[in-house]
């Protein structure tokens, strides 16, 4: 996964609360291998009719090249399905800006280089106003935790560990394997002090 520090791109307002994982990707698409690309599943049942044709009046269908979504509270709540993040990433989205996010969604997002930028209620109201007449360019700086929309500067919240990870594009497995000895030592101690924590093998 490649890291990034700044992102400038077209931001689209999707002023809906509770855009949950089942809306981001309906369950019926989740058996597809990732290599097929998940972009076309993004918000499938909101964006498309029963024949999978794009609905002309859905905002995301009216604009190309959207890189940033600005949404309502509780974005990505629900399921742990990482496929919800794949739909965004594969559709070219780099950041979602919202007042709150589902906890598991946020972890999954950061693991795929997608920024879940949390903004306060006042900042959200400002941003909604700036975007209500159509897509506008926003630039995001992970290092400073600030975003710019025209002359307006706003702060966003992000856990420090997630900031570092997004910037460095770290692979957790590589990082963890550097601690192999500590893990081995822990497992040995746990096995001797809590043998009951291992499943009985009679089965």
């Amino acid at each position: 996964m490649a890291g990034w520090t700044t992102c400038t791109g077209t931001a689209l307002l999707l002023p809906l609360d509770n855009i949950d994982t089942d809306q981001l990707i309906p369950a019926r698409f989740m058996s597809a291998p990732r290599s097929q690309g998940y972009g076309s599943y993004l918000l499938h049942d909101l964006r498309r009719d029963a024949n999978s044709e794009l609905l002309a009046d859905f905002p995301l269908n009216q604009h190309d090249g959207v890189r940033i979504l600005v949404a309502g509270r509780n974005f990505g709540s629900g399921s742990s399905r990482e496929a919800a993040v794949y739909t965004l990433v594969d559709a070219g989205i780099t950041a979602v800006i919202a007042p709150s996010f589902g906890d598991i969604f946020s972890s999954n997002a950061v693991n795929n280089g997608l920024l879940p930028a949390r903004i306060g209620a006042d900042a959200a109201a400002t941003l909604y106003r700036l975007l209500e007449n159509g897509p506008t360019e926003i630039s995001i700086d992970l290092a400073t935790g600030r975003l710019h929309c025209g002359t307006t500067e706003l702060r966003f919240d992000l856990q420090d560990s997630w900031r570092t990870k997004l910037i460095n594009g770290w692979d957790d497995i590589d990082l963890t394997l550097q601690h192999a000895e500590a893990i081995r030592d822990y497992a040995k101690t746990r096995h001797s002090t809590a043998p009951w924590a291992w499943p009985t093998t009679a089965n």
Partner: protein
Amino acid sequence: MSGALTLLDRLWAMHEILLREDGTSLLWVDRHLVHEGSHHAFAKLKDRGAQVAQPALTFGIVDHYAPTRNRGTEMAPDIARMIKTLTLNAEAHGIRLFDLFDPAQGIVHVVGPEQGLTLPGLLINCGDSHTSTHGALGALAFGIGATEVAHVLATQTIWQKKPAAMRITVEGDLGPGVSAKDIALHWIAKLGVGGAQGHAVEYAGSTIRGLSIEGRMTLCNLSIEGGARFGMVAPDDTTFAYLNGRPFAPKGADWDMACAAWAELRTDPDARFDRDVNIQAADIAPTVTWGTSPEQAVPVDADIPDPATLHSGKASAALAALDYMGLSAGKPIAGTPVDQVFIGSCTNGRIEDLRAACAVLAGRKTKVPGIVSPGSALIKAQAEQEGLDRIFTDAGLEWVASGCSMCVGMNGDLVAPGKRCASSTNRNFQGRQGRGARTHLMSPAMVAAAAVTGQITDVRPLLQGRAA
């Protein structure tokens, strides 16, 4: 460690291998449960040429795509491929798999506790948000995404920032016809779906102590619907009695040692929580959702709220939900006609849930069709031994095999567009049970009441004179 500790503090400390400067812990994973949906993670492992670090601590279960009818006959190609992929991955990595024909097959969050794979003091991960269920036994259990599943497979560890601690204390006796499901829907309606975001919830108080393990699982299961990745209950004698003799639970000297260790897993009386919420059991009525978010719930004897009267930030979502659900504000929720019912899922597919539904259904006929899918094959067998299957079928419902079924619809058990389903499941999201499906969440007893009357109904009068 010094000072007063919470259950979360104790469980966290037991599993912490190291703490990074940025506040993220590397935690040991005692049990890793995988299912068909874990295919992305196995693919990532393959891409790296990595192996499963601890196959003996990893268990596979076929549930999300499990057909509930005509099992063994030809399956839809997509479903067959998903199940085959899990089977091949389990074989390749030496993982014990509860496959479609295993006598203990079922939903991962039902099978784990039932088999004694879930124990107090364990850290349990699964690529499913309802992994919080296992916290009912005093485990540190949380759902993870595919990248994290791959990480656990490869290292048996997970990086995680310790959440804030929240306690929900429920005191007093629940009224007749009120269950753990109602406690959950009640607190989520009260605090909102983001109410516990960033927190681990410990459930405490006399009401919780009085709940069976099944009830505690329902409550912990739904923690994620209130935003909490973790739910937990301190283990007690009820927990130990539930686990004793389960197939994978410790035996002999290990059992005694385990019970001694588990007895220490509690919150100190003077421990502080980042958030404390108190609820009186007497204030909780049978509760039902009217919208498309679990927080959009009301007591069954209340009216569908007028969006204009809601908190300003919630009005537009409520309007959209009413439109999707085809409902009008200000009308009583009771009396809303339903087209079908579903009883099952990791939330409410356990034996106690089936018994609660049967207490309503016995000797009655249903006005609408529906299916009943027990949470595991063992629960199905037990229910059949108790004659519950006959009560369901005599009433007019279909008795099918175990799996996630109509809760998530991956196996083809779907609600048709525009149809309204009274459901014992966990999510009333738009399209959750099928495109355009309208879901009302409620307890199994309330689902049974809706089946009997063909509309959303207060179960309490239907239970009068019956042993609930």
